[in-house]
């Protein structure tokens, strides 16, 4: 079996591998975290602890699917830990005793400076390796906590400073995506003493409605609430925030979160600058075992990329995401249709007509498509809808008078 070193140092702490449970229902007690370590997770962010004890609704989840995929996005109404603070601190102590080489991160949430400072001290005394400041839970029943705090740079900075007073441990601040620009908040946290950033927490959402009762889901005695949305569907949003953070603050260290289920997702977060990765929804659906294929798949990817240290992959893609105004707009790429692969369904023709530029023509007799280059703008919508992958990027054509002295073969497609 392939064997590569997946260890990575993040905020000065060495992780045996970058895969961590995120602060959530999946790391809610000693037994859960112990099982996760046993299965091979490199770290655990223990479910957020605080003086506030959550009082939860029932039921508390919803999901959204598309076509035959039952679970592309997930909505969760749980807040922070529901066990007493002392019990959580005891679990943290015991976990650290049993698993000294795996990383344990205490996620904390206070309602004021004193609580933040006290929680930081208590978690440090319990033996945590690192802290994460939860500035981002979007479904708190108190507006002094959660994403309401995370939208305010001033509050975030103040609470970071308080945490720094309470602990010498490295700590990261966990960001809410329910904000136009995350950068000012992240900068304020770093200014307040945070060593790194965790992003993203869940996106405020209503997943679905009961059409008979006219109530959002899940229904709690005839009502529902807006709450956090996660899973595969939020990955693109999370990746965008990775990029924006790295662009604005190049040396920021990030723990990436948002829809990670496969090694491919993991590699994408790493290439955009994440050093560690946190997972919840994938575990809630499939269990801790998903880490096996994430680790093994990532090792194979490292092998293919010819790198021995995971660190060497971090942030490799950041330089290749640039502002829209800087992209090369001098050429178009026509679709190349593999007629042997084509099964004659005509979906490319439908999408091209109704959603693009009416360039894909249809031969009724042979049931085969043909691209009319006079109309085609090279958007390649056709390739995205083809069910058998018969349409790929083909011939390049420079727009009139735009080639200069460039060659087609130099264009990276």
């Amino acid at each position, binding site marked *: 079996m392939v064997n590569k070193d997946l260890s990575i140092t993040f905020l000065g702490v060495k992780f045996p591998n970058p895969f961590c449970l995120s602060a959530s229902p999946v790391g809610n007690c000693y037994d859960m975290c112990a099982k996760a370590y046993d299965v091979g997770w490199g770290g655990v962010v223990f479910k957020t602890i605080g003086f506030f004890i959550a009082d939860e609704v029932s039921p508390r989840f919803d999901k959204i699917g598309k076509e035959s995929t039952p679970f592309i996005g997930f909505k969760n109404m749980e807040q922070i830990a529901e066990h007493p603070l002392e019990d959580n601190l005891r679990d943290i102590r015991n976990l650290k005793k049993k698993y000294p080489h795996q990383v344990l991160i205490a996620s904390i949430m206070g309602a004021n400076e004193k609580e933040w400072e006290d929680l930081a001290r208590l978690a440090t005394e319990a033996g945590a390796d690192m802290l994460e400041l939860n500035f981002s839970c979007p479904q708190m029943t108190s507006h002094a906590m959660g994403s309401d705090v995370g939208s305010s740079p001033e509050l975030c900075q103040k609470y970071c400073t308080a945490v720094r007073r309470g602990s010498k441990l490295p700590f990261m601040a966990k960001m809410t995506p329910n904000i136009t620009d995350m950068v000012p908040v992240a900068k304020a946290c770093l200014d307040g003493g945070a060593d790194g950033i965790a992003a993203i927490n869940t996106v405020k959402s209503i997943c679905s409605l009961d059409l008979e009762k006219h109530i959002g889901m899940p229904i709690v005695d005839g009502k529902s609430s807006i709450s956090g949305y996660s899973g595969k569907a939020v990955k693109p949003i999370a990746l965008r925030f990775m990029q924006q953070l790295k662009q604005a603050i190049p040396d920021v260290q990030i723990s990436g979160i948002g829809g990670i289920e496969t090694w491919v997702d993991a590699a994408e977060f790493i290439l955009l600058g994440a050093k560690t990765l946190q997972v919840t929804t994938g575990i809630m659906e499939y269990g801790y075992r998903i880490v096996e294929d994430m680790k093994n798949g990532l090792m194979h990817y490292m092998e293919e990329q010819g790198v021995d240290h995971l660190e060497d992959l971090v942030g490799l893609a950041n330089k290749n995401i640039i502002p829209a105004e800087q992209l090369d707009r001098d050429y178009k790429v026509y679709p190349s249709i593999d007629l042997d692969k084509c099964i004659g369904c005509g979906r490319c023709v439908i999408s091209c007509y109704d959603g693009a530029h009416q360039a894909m023509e249809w031969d009724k007799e042979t049931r085969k498509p043909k691209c009319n280059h006079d109309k085609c703008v090279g958007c390649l919508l056709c390739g995205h809808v083809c069910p*058998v992958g018969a349409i790929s990027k083909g011939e390049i054509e420079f727009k009139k008078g735009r080639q200069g002295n460039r060659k087609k073969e130099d264009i990276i497609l």
Partner: protein
Amino acid sequence: MDNCKYSQPFEEPLSLKTVDEEANRCLLCLDAPCSQDCPAGTDPAKFIRSVRFLNFMGAAETVRENNPLGAICARVCPTERYCQKGCSRSGIDRPIEIGKIQQFVTDYENAHGMKILKKSKANGKKVAIVGAGPAGLTAGATLVKLGYKAEIYEASEKAGGYLRYGIPEYRLSDEIVDSEIKRIEDVGVKIHLGVKVDQKKLDELKANYDAVVLALGSNKGKILPMFEKNAKVVTAVDFLAEIKAKKGAVKLPDQVLVIGGGDVAMDTVTTLKLLGVKQVSDVVYETFEEFKASKKELQGAQKLGVSILDGYIPEKVEGGIVSFKHRYKESRLSIAADLIILAVGQFTDLNGITDLTIEKGEGKDNGKIFLAGDIAHGEKTVVYAVRTGKEVAYKIDNFLEGK
């Protein structure tokens, strides 16, 4: 004669797209029944999960590290008897097509030039293996993994045994057999071809090696007494071997009678139909309720137009006309054929070896001689040959290392 149907795989392999769909049908269930039902110890739940989560290389490792003939088993294993039998998905519609997913995974492994089989540092001991069929090949690969030098002695011109000379091309191509054998050779197993092992040669092997594996297979077809010396009669074993060697380019008559109802009989009747024989009748000792062959193969044969008559035993033969009577009901039939193929069981040609006695098809280990494959205890299938090939390697390791 049109032989292209014979040489083409019966079913389309899965593509990247369809394997994703099939893996997504998998319920990823707890304590997966599929992973508890493979004689060769395959863990389908694990490799299907890897496919589901896009880790195709990891899936290939899971298959190959456990089974040096993973690409062959993927194609020939009667999965509905083993891994697919308890599939939880049956509670919704039908089991996951585990063999097809395994085939995709091993094809992916080939396409990406992965070399997964490993050998350990040599421990200085060496083992001779007689027979390069599935059991001998598996024993060789496993012994090398444990640090032994393994050399196989094979009587035929090519390695593979029943994989090469028995299983029809449409189920298992020579190309796959070649590439699987090459993997095993690449990892250090040496194969000597065209060496017939008799007692004298066996004595020599015993003297020169620390242990000897006999994986002789049951390489000869049985002939019922009434069919002896009948010019129209051949055994299914000989028939399938000839067809495969000639890639189906054999002239066949219009009326063929097959007697027998096991997997070999199903391979025979299917081959005949794929080669364009008009009338193929298969008379079977067992009734359909007692049938031995896999349901899939049986239905496949019936779909091709083979008439299968169940519950009959042959009474009399005159030239090409065979009369049968039913075992339970008052019914007789008489079938005329230009060719009669017997698929009524196989036996092992010992070639004068006296160190081994075989009773009811099976023998016993004897001193430094160890058995694998058909002549070892267990079912007579490829997957069992893989199992006993692995077992014999560990048995020898225990024997020689005193574990």
